[in-house]
């Protein structure tokens, strides 16, 4: 394996790993944002319920 072949192989491994990491980073981002959205919805739901109860009284 000569200089160029080695460089090419390392580049290939690097690109492949980088693509996988980008996909996983996006997946993690979606999970975090999904959790935040869940929490916000729960909070909104609680607020709605609170307002509704106050209105009935």
């Amino acid at each position, binding site marked *: *394996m000569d*200089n160029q072949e*080695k*460089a090419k*192989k*390392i*580049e290939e*491994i*690097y690109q*492949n*790993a*980088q693509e*996988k*990491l*980008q996909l*996983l*980073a996006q*997946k*993690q*981002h979606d*999970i*975090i944002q999904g*959790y*935040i959205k869940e*929490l*916000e919805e*729960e*909070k909104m739901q609680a607020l709605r319920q609170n307002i509704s109860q106050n209105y009935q009284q």
Partner: protein
Amino acid sequence: MNSKDPIQQALEDQIKAAQEQGNTEELEAIRNDAESGFYEDVAQMAQEAIDNLKNQEQSAEQEVEEATPQVEELGGDSAELQERVEPVQEEMKEVVEGAEGEIEGVENRGQAEQGENLLDDAGKLFQESVTGNGLWISNIDFRKISQAKGVAEKLDGPEAKELIYNIDKSLKEYADLNKERLLSQYKANPDDPNKFSDTLQKAMQAYELLGNNNALSEFGRSLIPIDSMLAEKAFKLAGNAMGFNEMSSRHLREGHLDYAFELAQEAVSMDKNVTGAMKDVAQKMFERAEEEPSYNNYYNSAKAFSEAGNAQGLASLVYSAFDKLNSDDVVPLDMFSLITNSVYKIKELGRGMNQDVLERGLVFAEKAGLGEKDELVKKFKECF
């Protein structure tokens, strides 16, 4: 159209010139330089790739840390957040570790191939270095064979070992062949070293490069009657104290007392237990000191008895020295110093001296102009 890099062109010209001149050392140096530069570049590239991937992994971890306050503010749990992202982070870790392993694998594969190339070259160098006629090796290029062995010794693996084995086998065969020739040439012309000096040098070089202590020692023994200096060199290289001992005994038998003493000293310095020749040398030296009394002869005799660890011999020497009290052959002060040192050594060897030695020693000290307060006299008295 391919235009060549000027650096590459210069390197190719340099290689061509070295090839035309048959300069293998230069070729080796060029290749080593090129390879070390090449490996530095690849290693740097590999390290940068690994670092970048690790940075990406860390950025992802950081995103979780940064989101935690927002999650807590919304009434969420940071542990819950961590639990949700954990499988993804595990997967990222595996990707980075896997890539790191693969990149290092590429590097190692390159190094292994470099080793194979060097081994091939060493093998070729070995083939070039040996010229033979049928089963016998007729000549060896020591420079080339030494280079080939040097390269092979730096490499690992069964092929490198096999090459070293083959090189050593050829060296041994060549060395033994020249030894046989040397012995027959010496037999035919014992008084004309020029007739066999070339064979002698070839054999010596081959045994030296072979580095086999037993073969070197055996060769050293064959050299004792032919060339003492080379015999000494062979024993020295082989770390063989017994060889020096044997040589010393032989020269003592031939009446070369001082040279036998030198050789016996070498034997003792290499191995303090090899004192056989020194014991005989010491006895002969003592006899010479009695026959030809002089400080030097007594001094050498005392040294030889000391190195042989012979307390009895030293005691005889002390009594003999006392008898020289009124002799013109020795200087009393020198002799008293020698007596003191000998008595001190006897004490070190765990033996005592009679009271008459103390009395006779003090008489000698007085003759030497020394008194109770002199350090030498104090040292002498401390031995009793």
